[in-house]
């Protein structure tokens, strides 16, 4: 076992990122994510990395893409309004398959909303915030320890699948301090490099749907564009190429989907009622399960909320013959829509929603469970 350190969620994110190999961070101050930029500015130079404070969130996201194209593992961090501004470039990274990690520390919205208060209102934005039919991975850690290790995962996924990964924190776990045991062995993945620089086709994919990625400045000559492009990277209007590209962008995630999804089943062995929760609310629900100490109620935590662990949830529902599902979340009901899609009428699905800017308490959830 490694060393145990007391740290804040935002700090765990920076430490995890550096552990994963992040050497570039571009950001812009915004509550409640500012500590990530502050710490990155302090720590990155010590690892021979680069921190840049940009003039806004649009340029922060663009700088991250530029740095990643030059071969560095790159990240940016923001919250609600800033996440909205980053969306165009997130779509660009998705289309051009440039690895990057985008942290969104959720706060109350819409608009400026409640800058210092918690929310889970960006579930759908994290999936569909940018326009077009794009693939994306969204990971929502629950505890500070989760944040450390899932930031590493976020980089791993991003590099391996050449895709933007959204790390969805919230004001509570980002500002919470708890101890994290830093394990000595952590798996770190890097992006695939092309085998040759001759006749280099930057968007010719391997069997896994992912093209190896050369970097600018290393002798690979290629074009990068947000237009629909063929294997050479050049834009094309060919409907055939367009369909091929969009199909492949989705295929690369579908093919590796089982390696990507992360979830946890907590005391679900004999449960007939299931709570499904993510982020800070998931740990509140763990407390609920422990307090009521009743086999009939279990907890399912999706850590990758996109792609959602749908197969796994469905098999649990069928195996346990789940009768009722509660979905507590800090919004008016976003993740519940995905749960309803999976359940498809097999059992009752009820939302427990809070959007006052405060974290839901175990007592509040227990009250809802008892009310039935």
């Amino acid at each position, binding site marked *: 076992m490694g060393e145990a350190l007391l740290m804040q969620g935002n700090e765990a994110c920076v430490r995890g990122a550096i552990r994963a190999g992040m050497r570039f961070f571009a950001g*812009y*101050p*915004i*509550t409640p994510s*500012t500590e990530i*930029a*502050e710490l990155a*500015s*302090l720590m990155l*130079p010590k690892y021979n990395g680069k*921190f840049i*404070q940009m*003039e*806004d*969130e649009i340029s922060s996201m663009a700088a991250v893409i530029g740095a990643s194209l030059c071969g560095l593992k790159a990240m940016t961090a923001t919250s609600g*309004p800033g996440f909205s*501004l980053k969306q165009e470039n997130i779509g660009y990274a998705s289309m051009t398959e440039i690895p990057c990690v985008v942290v969104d520390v959720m706060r109350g919205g819409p*608009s*400026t909303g409640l*800058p210092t208060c918690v929310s889970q209102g960006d579930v759908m934005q994290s999936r569909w915030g940018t326009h077009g039919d794009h693939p994306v991975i969204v990971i929502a850690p629950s505890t500070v320890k989760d944040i450390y290790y899932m930031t590493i995962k976020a980089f791993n996924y991003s590099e391996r699948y050449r895709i933007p990964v959204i790390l969805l924190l919230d004001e509570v776990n980002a500002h919470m301090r708890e101890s994290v045991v830093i394990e000595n062995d952590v798996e770190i993945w890097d992006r695939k490099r092309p085998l040759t620089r001759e006749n280099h086709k930057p968007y010719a994919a391997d069997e896994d749907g992912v093209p190896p990625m050369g970097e600018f400045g290393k002798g690979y000559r290629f074009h990068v564009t947000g237009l629909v492009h063929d294997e050479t990277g050049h834009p094309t209007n060919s409907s055939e190429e367009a369909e091929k590209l969009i199909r492949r962008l989705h295929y690369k995630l579908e093919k590796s989907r089982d390696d990507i999804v992360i979830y946890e089943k907590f005391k679900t062995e004999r449960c007939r009622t299931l709570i499904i929760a993510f982020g800070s609310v998931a740990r509140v629900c763990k407390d609920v399960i422990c307090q009521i100490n009743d086999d009939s109620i279990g907890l399912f935590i999706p850590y990758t909320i996109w792609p959602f662990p749908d197969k796994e949830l469905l098999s649990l529902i069928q195996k346990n013959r789940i009768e009722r599902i509660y979905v507590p979340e800090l919004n008016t009901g976003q993740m519940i829509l995905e749960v309803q899609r999976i359940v498809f009428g097999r059992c009752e699905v009820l939302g427990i929603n809070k959007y006052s800017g405060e974290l839901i308490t175990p007592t509040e959830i227990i009250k809802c469970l008892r009310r039935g």
Partner: protein
Amino acid sequence: MPNLKELSKKPARLTGGHRMCAGCGAPMVVNWVTKALKEGDKAVIANATGCLEVSSFLYPYTAWKDSWIHSAFENAAATISGAEAAYNAMKRKGRIDETYKFIAFGGDGGTYDIGLQSLSGAMERGHDMVYVCYDNGAYMNTGIQRSSATPFGADTTTSPAGKVVPGKQQFRKDLTQIMAAHNLPYVAQTVAPVPGTKYMFDLYNKSEKAIYTKGANFLNVLTPCPRGWRIEAATELDVIKAAVETCWWPLYEVENGKYKLTYKPAEKKPITEWLKLQGRFKHLLKPGNEHLVEKIQAEVDRRWERLLELCGEKEIAKAEVAASNK
């Protein structure tokens, strides 16, 4: 020059009861700017995200006597553009009788950085408005991060002064010059009022001119922030004075392209007079960092000399020398 007694009788349009920090310069600046409005005139105020915005209208109170809108961080100038254009249309149709003035307030983050595009657009379109930047040289609302208005060498949380890097590594952007390059009717640089100085009414006079000169006009106001500058609130007027007397923050205006110095220090003080008063520059004055202070002094000198040229001060000085030689 206005009479202080008369001025004090004019009702404040930003009243007490806001929750800005003790010693914050922003409400003082807003008060003097809005006092320059004629008493019968109404105003629409747009406010970019920032300290002033979050602290001046906390439910269920507001410190503002005028109509007020906060939209986002990057678009106060665009929002007020829309309000001004709509007002013109209503006025044209005879649906509104009163005279309204349009003023936007933004800090340096919301003006120099994220709001620059929206500001430039509004200025170029020439709406009848004034944009006032209260420049305190960093993102104070989120806890002191560097901005492009942060001075060289300043210690902020994203340009931390350490053993290797001595604070911010870039000189500040000269926004007043950028605005002057938009060829506006009126652009001016000034400071929060310092009683007992020749430039006590500089902000008031420039505000009046900016508000009542037709077209898109701009004011850049150096505004103290005790938290971010690491100063005692009681010393802030001395700090402002030092900014002017060292020529770190010259007072000037550009009216229809014509530059004019509105205050010229009798004797230009060394830049250390400005640096030594503030905790954010503490590390610069330690032994071994003399070269950094020299570098700052050289840049202040360069910018000051250029401004003197633009203002025609060099020719005036030459003529004076020639006259005295006769």
